[in-house]
């Protein structure tokens, strides 16, 4: 580990010799000793890293903690992500009733649990078509390109009311957002292009509304002057990007994890009860914790965490990976230990979608997408197998969201 005084450099690289699904060992070590430690990040600042399940929940719902990127001391992930988030700031990186709760509520009705469950058949159709196309094509196939990206991209574009946008272009621009190698100029340019695209759609829909999310934003918010075109475009951008890249990574990584745990895969494949797939998805979200570079916050008042005082103005990073492997929350004596995948484990209290008022807005959509994909894929292709050793899969160690750049499969 690279030490800078008493503060290790963060994020730590994943250990190439270990299982590619495991978070870096140093994180478990911090969790199982002090629980909290100062780390050093890219800009030389030394925010606190919080690693235990209970502490992460407490911090994310604490009134002394802010998600506002404009507060002094906010620990950004990189210069590029800082540039993009400043250019397209939304309720995602703001606090309070006016700046967070109200704009979030404008979107929340679009993603309610029941509404998302009612999309199950649509998602099934999209999934079946993607699998048909993969089967009709060459072997081996890249599951990321054939299944993991198309399903959530089609879904979020359809919900927004933009079925005809260039999906590949949207995926490429989003990739720029999450790549650690992107420069601030790259991410700002990508944000401009997507903001333009969404702004244009809002204008069109203000004239000729349909039955979709952007039309409702246009007619109920833009036209009556409640929110500006800029603010609404930023909200659309957030949904478009958050809405496909994350689910896609879960599909690819989840498939890889199940193919390497065939006994678990068989349980999902052979289950009649939909509750099995639902439970499996919670466990996969926990076990894989794709948001692996830590949620970022800053203290706006002093607070106490794991026996340590965090001072006002100090940055705080919530390490979801070790929190989701915390024995205090997930070892119950009946199931495999938290470092193993056990789809029968009650895992709903995982932190993969965060906690507190910023907890994922699209979680019910993601759940149904993942439930449909995992309960369909192995039934339709019982012989599905990795076409390369797991250790050769190009995992996204270089991205702020974990996944696989490519997952070659055969059948």
């Amino acid at each position, binding site marked *: 580990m690279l030490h800078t005084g008493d503060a290790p450099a963060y994020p730590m690289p994943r250990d190439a010799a270990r299982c590619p699904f495991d978070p870096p060992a140093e994180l478990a070590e911090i969790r199982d000793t002090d629980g909290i430690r100062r780390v050093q990040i890219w800009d030389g600042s030394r925010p606190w890293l919080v690693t235990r399940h209970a502490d992460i929940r407490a911090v*994310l*719902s604490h009134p002394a903690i802010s998600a506002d990127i404009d507060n002094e001391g906010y620990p950004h992930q990189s210069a590029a992500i800082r540039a993009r988030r400043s250019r397209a700031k939304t309720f995602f990186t703001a606090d309070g009733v006016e700046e967070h*709760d109200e704009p*979030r*509520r*404008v979107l*929340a*009705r*679009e*993603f*309610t*649990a*029941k509404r*998302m469950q009612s999309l199950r058949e649509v998602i099934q159709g999209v999934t079946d078509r993607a699998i048909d196309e993969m089967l009709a094509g060459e072997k081996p196939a890249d599951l990321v390109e054939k299944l993991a990206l198309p399903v959530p991209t089609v879904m979020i574009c359809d919900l927004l009311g933009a079925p005809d946008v260039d999906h590949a272009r949207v995926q490429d621009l989003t990739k720029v957002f999450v790549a650690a190698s992107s420069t601030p100029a790259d991410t700002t340019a990508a944000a401009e292009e997507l903001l333009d695209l969404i702004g244009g759609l809002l204008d069109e829909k203000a004239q000729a509304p349909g039955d979709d999310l952007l039309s409702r934003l246009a007619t109920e918010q833009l036209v009556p002057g409640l929110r500006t075109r800029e603010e609404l475009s930023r909200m659309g951008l957030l949904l478009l990007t958050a809405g496909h890249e994350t689910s896609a990574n879960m599909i690819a990584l989840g498939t890889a994890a199940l193919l390497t745990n065939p006994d678990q895969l068989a349980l999902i494949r052979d289950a009649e009860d939909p509750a099995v797939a639902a439970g499996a998805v919670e466990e996969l979200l926990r076990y894989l914790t794709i948001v692996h570079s830590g949620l970022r916050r800053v203290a706006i008042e002093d607070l106490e965490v794991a026996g340590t005082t965090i001072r006002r103005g100090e940055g705080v990073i919530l390490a979801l990976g070790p929190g989701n492997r915390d024995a205090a929350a997930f070892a119950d004596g009946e199931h495999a230990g938290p470092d193993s995948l056990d789809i029968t484990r009650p895992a*709903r*209290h995982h932190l993969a*979608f*965060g*906690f*507190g*008022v*910023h*907890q*994922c*807005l699209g*979680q*019910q959509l993601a*759940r149904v997408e993942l439930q449909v994909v995992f309960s369909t894929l192995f039934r339709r292709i019982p012989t599905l197998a990795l076409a390369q050793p797991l250790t050769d899969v190009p995992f996204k160690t270089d991205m702020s969201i974990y996944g696989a750049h490519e997952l070659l499969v055969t059948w």
Partner: protein
Amino acid sequence: MKIHIDEDRCVGGGQCVLAAPEVFDQRDDDGIVVLLQEQPADDLDHQVREAALLCPALAITLEETAP
């Protein structure tokens, strides 16, 4: 057990609906929680407790009532 909800805190993620669909729903116009029953039957206890535990906004509180 009696359930209290704080609509102002709710962020409409629907965790409660998933945990206890007979007890919680969400409003169509803003996704905010709707309490379907204030004092559900005992057999829903487990589900209701899970909903309160999962609620990310700490908007659900439970008041134990005499058996």
